[in-house]
């Protein structure tokens, strides 16, 4: 176990470093800067602003400063303490270039909990519902019910989330008036967005569980279990479910990361101040530090969730040893 954790921690550090470096370079390669979209600044002012954020530095120096904690600021560690930021390794993601009075840390501290809460809610219901639908579909394979459930899942996968969101708002908020249209001030505000956010995940899980379970049910050892005189429900629950769930579980790593980090579309529609909208906006605005900050959070999340999935795998399948992962 410690072996596994140590290796994963190392892997995480390496992955994040590579992601940060690539993102850092890529963002500088696209033309335009954080301030080029604004009214043309007088050349002197532009130079001032650039100097304030060290955009006038050579790239390598900016990179070293960004990573930290090595300080290459002209003012120096013992200078006038005007260092712009301490660097990623010191846990300081720097100031936002666009949200002038905020640091990236502040923005994330405000928006990430919102996205995480919404995403967890979406995950919980979509995993539960998707699994149940998948199991029912596999157990009643070929029945009318199975057909309907499969059609439902196909819709959930095919429909874009803004369509689902729109339909939900239309029915439950505008027509029935049961739930608020938008905002994030109460639990009720989270219901519709979590439904819209989780719908494709639930549909995908339903499909993966169904095919996984059908595959598992066709194994020789299932025939053995039936030949032992076990009730079908026991055969499914005890003998088929573990194997049948494995595909859905490997999907869950990336899916959970995607849902937890928030979706731009859902957050826009429901006016939820989550991280998802910041990610896209920051990239478009060339808000370098914010975009990099969100990227770092995302990659940490994705990497950790995948490690979690691997861990779950070893719990489910005794043939996979933790040491080999």
């Amino acid at each position, binding site marked *: 176990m410690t072996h596994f954790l140590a290796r994963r921690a190392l892997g995480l550090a390496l992955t994040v470093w590579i992601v940060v470096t690539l993102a850092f370079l890529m963002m500088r390669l696209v033309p335009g800067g954080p301030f080029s979209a604004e009214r043309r600044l007088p050349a002197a002012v532009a130079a001032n602003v650039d100097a304030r954020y060290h955009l006038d530095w050579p790239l390598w120096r900016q990179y070293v400063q960004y990573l930290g904690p090595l300080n290459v600021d002209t003012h120096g560690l013992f200078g006038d303490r005007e260092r712009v930021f301490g660097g990623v390794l010191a846990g300081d993601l720097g100031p936002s270039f666009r949200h002038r009075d905020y640091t990236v840390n502040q923005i994330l501290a405000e928006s990430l909990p919102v996205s995480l809460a919404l995403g967890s809610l979406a995950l919980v219901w979509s995993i539960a519902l998707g699994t149940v639908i998948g199991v029912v579909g596999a157990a009643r394979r070929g029945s009318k019910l199975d057909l309907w459930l499969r059609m439902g899942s196909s819709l959930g996968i095919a429909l874009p989330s803004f369509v689902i969101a729109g339909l939900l708002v239309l029915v439950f908020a505008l027509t029935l008036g049961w739930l608020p249209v938008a905002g994030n001030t109460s639990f009720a505000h989270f219901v519709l967005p979590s439904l819209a956010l989780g719908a494709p995940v639930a549909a995908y899980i339903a499909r993966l569980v169904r095919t996984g379970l059908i595959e598992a049910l066709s*194994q*020789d*050892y*299932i*025939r*053995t*279990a*039936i*030949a*032992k*005189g*076990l*009730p079908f429900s*026991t055969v499914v629950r*005890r*003998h088929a479910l*573990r*194997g049948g769930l494995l595909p859905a579980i490997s999907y869950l790593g990336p899916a959970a990361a995607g849902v937890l980090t928030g979706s731009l579309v859902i957050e826009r529609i429901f006016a939820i101040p989550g991280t998802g909208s910041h990610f896209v906006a920051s990239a478009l605005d060339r808000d370098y530090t914010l975009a990099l900050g969100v990227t770092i959070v995302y990659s940490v999340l994705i990497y950790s969730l995948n490690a979690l999935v691997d861990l779950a795998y070893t719990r*489910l*399948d*005794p*043939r996979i040893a933790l040491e080999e992962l």
Partner: protein
Amino acid sequence: MSLLEVTNLRVRYDTPRGPVWAVDQVSFKLDAGETVALVGESGSGKSTTALAILGLVAFSGGTVETGEIWFGGKNLLALREDELRAVRASEIALVFQDATAALNPFLTIGLQIAEVLEVHRGLSRREALVAAGKALGDVGIAEPEARLASFPHELSGGQRQRALIAMSLIAKPKVVIADEPTTALDPALALLVLDLLRREREQNGAGVLLVSHDLELVASEAKRVHVMYAGRVAESADADELFAAPWHPYTAALWRARPRLDGERPKRLAAVAGAPVDPAALPTGCAFHPRCEFVVERCRRERPDLSGLLRAEGAMSLRSGRRSACFEKERLALPREEASTP
């Protein structure tokens, strides 16, 4: 009355190429304490027959069209699913061929054995595990209690095979169906399996239905043999009679083509000349006629029924119940007579 009696069994699989009658008009009996064998080349319907007895053909997409399977005064084919469940493993057990595939890789050996007793004998998990440990010891697994917590992949091939047999036989079934129990095994392991099956028969009086394509094995183990070809029984006879003088050209060819004792045990049934029959496109008349050296005109038009000899010498066959589905069986059964008639 026999322990198990199969009459007129007919099983259909619907395949993309049309319906296949994998088993057709198959009848046989099995008594307590005896071994009866089904032999035949690949695709002759042996496994399907075995699976039909426990109502398992639906699992692979087959349908039992006609037939009766009498066991303990009940027709198994007429039972409800829950009644049939009570028979499985408890009264009639299947020993599957490939232990690696037949054991669930996700569950411990102990649980897989114990659950048989839990469901059929109402034991608690704890009691059932104790019994499972004993059963593992009985089939010769060292440190049986420790092995209860092992997963199948943690055992050697031999241990897995032993565990599978312990699992199949733990509820002391009256009928044991062994489908190719030795085919994939090395000789030492094959001997072990046969030994365990024999012990079950001799000590507990179980009837053993042995499904195999290994003629040597069948000749040494079985009292009665049913040779299957293209889903039908080609010949039924006591083992000693059958191999001394086959009454069906297919049996004769099989017996001639069998690998010799000094050779290796065959993985597949030794080749009989001619192409194996395609069950989706059965020849007219006798299904064996394209490969038969005794073929006559009638064989291409009519299908021979399974029956004894018509002549006086056939009276013996009535007593022993020996039968062959061949128009020309007299030529095989009474070769001397044929030689004397011009």
